[in-house]
């Protein structure tokens, strides 16, 4: 029963991600669970690099919050000159959304919660 509920939650999340993906400035996303992952990126050549970056962002976030005793990570934002990544844990899944820097990541964050 519990696993069925979890699956439903993930399905709802994926529906939301499909809508987000079509928004202007969104490059794509990586959603990783313990057994599966869904990746939707405009530039498929960069899948591996983006997956490594997503994983590293989660690790860095976890290490830093542990060092500073900030408690569990809620959201992580990594910014470069033109691109940014919003990473968060949802339903035991690690989600990273890649977007152009001009996109309001707070709005996306709110729509996912």
């Amino acid at each position, binding site marked *: 029963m519990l696993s069925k509920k979890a699956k439903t939650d993930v399905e709802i999340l994926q529906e939301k991600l499909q809508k987000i993906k079509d928004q202007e400035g969104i490059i794509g996303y990586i959603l990783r669970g313990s057994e599966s992952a869904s990746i939707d990126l405009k530039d498929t050549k960069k899948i591996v690099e983006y997956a490594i970056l997503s994983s590293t962002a989660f690790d860095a976030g976890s*290490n*830093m919050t542990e060092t500073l*005793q900030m408690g569990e990570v809620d959201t*992580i934002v*990594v910014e470069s000159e*033109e*691109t940014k990544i919003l990473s968060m844990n949802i339903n035991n899944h690690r989600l990273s959304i890649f977007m152009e820097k001009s996109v309001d990541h707070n709005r996306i964050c709110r729509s996912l919660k």
Partner: protein
Amino acid sequence: MNIDTYAVTLNNALNEIKKAYPEIKKSFIFTKEGSIVTGDQETDEKTMKKILESFENLKEKTKTIGNLTGFYITGKNGKLMLSNIKDMYLVLATSENADKLHIYSITQVIIPTLLKTLDTIAPSIQLTPPKKLVVDTPSGLFADDSVQIDTEILRECNNGELTENTGPPVHVKAALTADQNSQESIDHVQIETFGGNSTLCNVKEVNDQKLKGKNMIRIPEKLCKTLKISEGDLVKVKPDL
């Protein structure tokens, strides 16, 4: 302006900011090359090094999307903001309800203005990490407690330190360089191990031809024991000017 003055100025600023904005829990500044410049009085070096280590790894992987300009974490009990300001990174750890305007004024106004002012006073300031050298321990009798480094390596160490390009050139010790016009000398170096031990000791030019031109430092066995290092280990070396 030397490295200490530069760091002290920024340290004072961070401490004053912390007093003015109690929601700032920890703050420190490091260079884009990964050298810690200073931190507020409540942020210990171990914490800064741990954050820096995680950041350096992330910075490397971020090259996929360009140069890392910011890293922000919202945790259950606080926030972490890591912002790129000129050639530096400012780290601010705040409470979860930190005022956005306060943070904005610190990251976008106060620290950038201060760095700009320091840059105006002492242009072309460059902070680079200390030179990393491989330890060699001499066999047989070692006459004194001095460490030995190749002159060229020592000169590179010296050039990597905070210097004012507009001021008089800093030379390594005349005895090492045969430069009679040397205005400043290096007769001591600070050695720091990756285990966190450090010491200040005398330095001489390496007398073994095999070690010349190599990134090696010859350290007496007794000093190796004190620093808890052995042959082949890496140590960080910077001149004590």
